């Protein structure tokens, strides 16, 4: 597969520097590689000192790791971004309309546009949300849309993250780091700022507070605790927003409201940005063994006294099987053709598709419907014979558990290596905020990069790194 030609976002396919990268390239060529290597190390020290780490699941506290940071920015032109953001906005609007419909009339099922089993057999569907209208009518306050690129004009949505998308702190810290290390780059390029995100997030959450409070809403951020892999991000966002970072044991239901234990007694919280999964949210309603949540929180929520962001049950919208219906979903709720394309997807639950997938396993990427983080996934072209055989068995045993997609020729962006620039595959996760006031997309997002040569897996848990992502003012 290495003789395949990939679209490089800096050099195109012809090897000439593309326009958005030209000022950067001029700068880069005037720099001493030794100096840049020192900067790269400096960046890592900075990250370590700031504590921008993630905990590896199932290991002790000692295992805090850095997500490798690459100093070469990924640059997107203003025009490209405009086009993308229109598509993202349309998609996010459709996702919210879909969630409202699924938990109310299920018109899309009645209209025959989505098979009923997609909902009835879906574990992410929360019956407790049926008939509940979240405050402000918003389900997904924060969405991350994973995009990949295959050519100058070709973008695809790889995945929607409608539960608790993470990574936004890396987007912000990557920019801070670049600003500190290479201030001169930002006077040569007009890069749209991302630093407004925490303020936007706060305003967006506050705008979704339960109605009739008669006071400024109190926002809190619920974390599973300091051993959670994304704890850094939780504390970072709480800090930047100026809100309390709470854990389940700081909270209880009092006087029909969610309250936090302060040094002056229990005080109400009106909007809870939770980074705890649905199942753990309320031992009284869901998993009775959970110690991460708050008993009775769902009762407070269903009585309309609390906003939970994202709303419980939003996982139904980012399920990989639902993903394959996103074009229909967008059309059904917006009445428009989708502006952003889906990656063509075979649902293995379908007999003919399964047969195709089994016949072409070596060319395809196979994913678990409910999996995340690059686990439980097969990448046909790089898999060994043994892996292929094992996956074939899995597919035959539980076809409904898998979808398959072609291996896309993911675009590359250079990273800085010992021997200079080298192309590596990337994806992009822009972050979207939804409130009754509108949809807000921070220009750029998190670029994840597969650091291993030829690798297509960008997940941090599988050796991926990140880059600062620039959207230029054209």
């Amino acid at each position, binding site marked *: 597969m290495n003789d395949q030609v990939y679209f490089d976002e800096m050099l195109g396919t012809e090897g000439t520097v593309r326009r958005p990268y030209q000022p950067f390239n001029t700068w880069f060529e005037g720099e001493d590689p030794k100096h840049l290597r020192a900067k790269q190390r400096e960046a890592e020290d900075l990250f370590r000192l700031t504590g921008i780490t993630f905990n590896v699941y199932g290991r002790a506290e000692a295992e805090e790791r850095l997500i490798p940071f690459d100093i070469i920015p990924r640059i997107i032109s203003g025009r490209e971004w405009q086009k993308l953001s229109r598509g993202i906005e349309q998609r996010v609007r459709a996702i919210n309309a879909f969630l409202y419909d699924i938990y109310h009339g299920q018109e899309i099922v009645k209209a025959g546009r989505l098979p009923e089993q997609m909902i009835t057999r879906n574990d992410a569907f929360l019956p*407790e949300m049926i008939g*509940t209208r979240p405050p402000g009518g918003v389900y997904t306050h924060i969405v991350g849309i994973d995009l990949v690129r295959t050519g100058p004009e070709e973008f695809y949505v790889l995945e929607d993250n409608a539960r608790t998308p993470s990574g936004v702190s890396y987007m912000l810290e990557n920019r801070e780091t670049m600003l500190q290390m290479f201030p001169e780059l930002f006077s040569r390029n007009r890069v749209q700022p991302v630093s407004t995100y925490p303020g936007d997030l706060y305003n967006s959450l506050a705008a979704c507070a339960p109605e009739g409070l008669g006071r400024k809403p109190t926002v809190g951020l619920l974390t599973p605790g300091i051993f959670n892999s994304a704890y850094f991000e939780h504390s970072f966002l709480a800090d930047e927003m100026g809100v309390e970072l709470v854990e389940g044991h700081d909270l209880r239901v009092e006087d029909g409201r969610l309250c936090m234990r302060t040094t002056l007694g229990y005080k109400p919280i009106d909007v809870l940005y939770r980074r705890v999964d649905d199942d753990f949210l309320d031992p*009284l*309603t869901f998993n009775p063994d959970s110690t991460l949540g708050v008993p009775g929180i769902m009762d407070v929520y269903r009585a*309309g006294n609390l906003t939970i962001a994202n709303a419980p049950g939003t996982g139904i919208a980012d399920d990989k099987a639902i993903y394959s219906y996103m074009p229909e979903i967008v059309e059904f709720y917006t009445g428009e053709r989708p502006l952003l394309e889906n990656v063509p997807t075979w649902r293995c639950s379908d007999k003919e598709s399964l047969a195709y997938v089994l016949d072409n396993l070596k060319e395809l990427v196979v994913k678990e419907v409910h999996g995340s983080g690059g686990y439980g996934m097969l990448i046909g072209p790089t898999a060994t014979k043994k892996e292929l055989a094992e996956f074939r068995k899995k597919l035959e045993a539980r076809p409904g558990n898998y979808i398959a997609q072609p291996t896309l020729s993911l675009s590359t962006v250079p990273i800085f290596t010992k021997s200079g620039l080298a192309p590596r595959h990337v994806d992009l996760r822009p972050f979207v905020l939804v409130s009754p006031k509108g949809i807000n997309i921070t220009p750029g997002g998190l670029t994840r990069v597969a650091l291993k040569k030829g690798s297509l897996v960008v997940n941090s848990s599988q050796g991926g790194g990140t880059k600062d992502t620039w959207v230029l003012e054209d």
Partner: protein
Amino acid sequence: MNLTIRHITRYRFEEPVNFGLQQLRKTPKSRHSQNVLRWDTSVAGGQQSLSYTDHHQNTVDLIEIDRGAQELVITCEGEVHLDDNHGVVGRHLGPAPLWLYRRVTPQTKAGQGVRALVRGVSGDTELDRAHALMAAVAEAVAYEVGTSESDWTAEEALSAGRGVCQDHSHVFIACAREMGLPARYVSGYLMLDHTTEQDAMHAWAEAHLPGLGWVGFDCSNCISPDQRYVRVATGMDYHDAAPVRGTRQGGALEALDVEIEVAQQ
């Protein structure tokens, strides 16, 4: 016919309660042949802090137990007008979609026992088959108070061959869903002929039948509910429709005392 109901639940705790919540589903529904004329829930040793309607159209009240309480008394009292409708509750109203009641829950999961029971059920119409199922369940599981556990599944009750109304309902629901019928659990009150005093609520099942909508089946008495039956809460299974779900910190339970009076007005 009008029934008056008085239901007192008294909890005594060994030590003072530090923190406690109770989710109640104890308010009868006003629908079809059942009309709640008045209903009142009062709490001593706690406060009713909020109320909402859940996805099965149950009224849910949240009770917060007072800090330091050593006793909690919940009194529900009211009057309900009932007409005999031969167990027919009628058309499915939302918000939960009908298909939800085809979903299997841990307590209503079909195994060998359920499937064997279903195989023995015959009849010309769905209604006939549902009645036959009721009889089959009653025969397979003897009604015996105090011999089953409250967390038993349908299969466990079947293999034990005994149980109470909760077990009967779970077995019926598991079988009905296995037969392709939407089915649900009902908790409620039943007026008894010989006495007004009781020590537990009753439970039965409902299946959704073509042309009729929801129809009740009380396997414990082998009849479809009549005007002596008061529907309180519905759900996928006992857990979903339970009159009380609670959580407590501190205050180990010392004694639980239930007094129920159901009388014809």
